[in-house]
């Protein structure tokens, strides 16, 4: 036993030495390369003015603002599309997942068809297709469709009345020189990304929900019905609490991958974090720093989600015990 312990220690020491050597070598080569070629490094560029504009932003942003604020605006844009998409995909996915368990053959078939189609086509392709549909089939901004009072839909997106604005309580969209001016505008990039992410993730959520419900032994629902519960009561009081326990962990995973998938925004011109970081990379040439920033932010989001998910699991655990 003593020998084994010593050997393990030896192996680990060697491993650590190899690792340090590799790291040292990597840093040495990189630093050497950069010094020899006069490449600047460091994060000082974050304080410089960004110098480029961002098409749409939740945070007030101007090209004279600093680069880090530009990246923050990018992150805000990522969350701006990811959070509604999480909500929409969870709702739609739950409905479809339940639909797949319906006694009705048509509904079951439709939901199965939805899942099998959406899951088996790359998300990027779906996003590109949605974007093409939104920008190509809608009328140009100068001839926007009016869906209601002060609600316009066109190639330039969906314009809605929004609180605030210069004058009164509501900022109303109006027809301007090139199209719609004022109000809150949801751009086609945003709409396509929201639509694509929600529909794609809904297929995965549906499978998660279906799997979760099927994981509850059949005897449970039979017993509940035998006790005289209605189908709704059985579902709410017996099936759901048990199913949730196996649904929630994979569900948070789906939400996390939705947030990561939002990075595909770069392909359709929505200024999310990756897109803004990519522009920064081009303007400053600081490739390593920009990529490191993207990765760090996403890692943080992942940790945050993991933590939230654990908290949620504890909460539902308690709720299950109570009901």
């Amino acid at each position, binding site marked *: 036993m003593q020998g*084994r312990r010593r*050997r393990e220690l030896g*192996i680990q020491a*060697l*491993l650590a*030495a*190899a690792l340090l*050597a*590799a790291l040292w*070598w990597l840093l040495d*080569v990189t630093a050497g*390369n*950069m010094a*020899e*070629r*006069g*490449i*600047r490094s460091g994060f000082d560029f974050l304080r410089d003015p960004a*110098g*480029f*504009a*961002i*098409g*749409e932003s939740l945070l007030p942003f101007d*090209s*004279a603002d600093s680069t880090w604020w530009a990246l923050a605006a990018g992150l805000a844009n990522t969350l701006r599309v990811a959070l509604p998409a999480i909500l929409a995909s969870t709702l739609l996915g739950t409905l479809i997942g339940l639909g797949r368990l319906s006694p009705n053959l048509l509904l079951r078939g439709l939901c199965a068809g939805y899942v099998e189609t959406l899951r088996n086509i790359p998300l990027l392709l779906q996003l590109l297709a949605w974007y*093409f549909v939104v*920008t*190509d089939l809608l009328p*140009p*901004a100068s001839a926007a469709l009016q869906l209601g009072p002060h609600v316009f839909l066109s*190639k*330039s997106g969906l314009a809605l009345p929004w609180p605030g604005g210069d004058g009164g309580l509501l900022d109303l969209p109006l027809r*301007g*020189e*090139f*199209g719609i*001016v004022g109000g809150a505008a949801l*751009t*086609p*990039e945003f709409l396509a990304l929201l639509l694509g992410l929600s529909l794609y993730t809904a297929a995965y959520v549906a499978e998660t929900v279906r799997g979760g419900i099927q994981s509850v032994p059949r005897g449970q629902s039979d017993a509940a019905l035998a006790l005289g519960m209605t189908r709704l009561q059985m579902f709410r009081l017996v099936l759901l609490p048990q199913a949730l326990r196996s649904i929630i962990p994979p569900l948070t995973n789906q939400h996390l991958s939705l947030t990561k998938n939002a990075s595909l925004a*770069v*392909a*359709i*011109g929505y*200024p999310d974090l990756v*897109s803004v970081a*990519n*522009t920064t*990379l*081009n*303007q*400053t*040439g600081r*490739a390593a720093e920009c990529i490191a920033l993207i990765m760090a932010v996403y890692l943080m989001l992942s940790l945050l989600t993991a933590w939230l998910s654990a908290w949620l699991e504890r909460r539902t655990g308690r709720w299950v015990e109570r009901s």
Partner: protein
Amino acid sequence: MNLPNVAPNWPAAIALLVLSLQFPAAHAGKTLDQIRQRGQLVCGVSTGVIGFSAADSQGRWNGLDVDVCRAIAAAVLNDANKVKYVPLNAQQRFTALQSGEVDLLSRNTTWTLTRDASLGLHFTAVTYYDGQGFLVPKKLKLGSARQLKNAEICVQSGTTTEKNLSDYFKAQGIKIKPVVFEKFEASIKAFFSGRCQAYTTDASALAFIRSKEAPKPDDYVVLPELISKEPLGPVVRRGDDEWFAIVKWVIFALIEAEEYGVTQANLEQMKAGSDPAIQRLLGSAEDSGKLLGLEREWAARAVKAVGNYGELFQRNVGSASPLKLPRGLNALWNKGGLMYAPPIR
């Protein structure tokens, strides 16, 4: 429990790993020696900008930037075809040059202070003076870029274009909404589908986009304003002054050849002529190549391969090309343009 038969391999494997890590970094010699040794110039070009660098369906590259590579290959290796083209997108281009993946970046790249001073690169000489302009649909009846208030403008990311756009309209006090795309194809597609009211990029590319990409070229106009200076030229890595000089002077030789009227066709006659400046340029009088570490006829070979700067311009982007761009700023200095080569002597 013990670790049979595999355990003794651990130290060996780690030793191997460490050994392989200490493998000496294959150190770059001088760029010129490397090129001679491999018998090939590695040239970074764009993934496809017609007139500058674009591959046809057979994979043959042509364009102004490509001809610069060919001229340098001719001067250095005496064979304009010994070039390997590496297509690079806007993000890849500087790292590819920095890392030594390419010897030369000839990819319509704008010379700016930040790039010259902080990316470990040297811009050599200007091969095309460009400026950023706007393409708009005719039906919007716009006469000036200043009328683009609140307009959405499609732009490709990874270029100096985004920054110019924001600078210009900020100076004018006009608000615009940029719609930024990662890829050229996507930005073009969005503009022609009517997503934006204007498209912006270098004027040379706008001419091409209007004539080749527009469903009906006559439905679109290029606005008169050029909002920026875009001097485009080849870039080399820092730390090799000899290579820097070679690239610079091959370009100057092409410009000088135009100035003295030396063309691909009359080269041999000119060699035999009596003008001392031409004699010097073509290596029939004194050996200017020696100073650059090249052979005596370096400039003559470059001109022989691609023609002088004027020929190169006309063939790729000028009147003999589909782009039909005017010489404008790119005419010789004595013809109202900016093309001026220091004397070869």
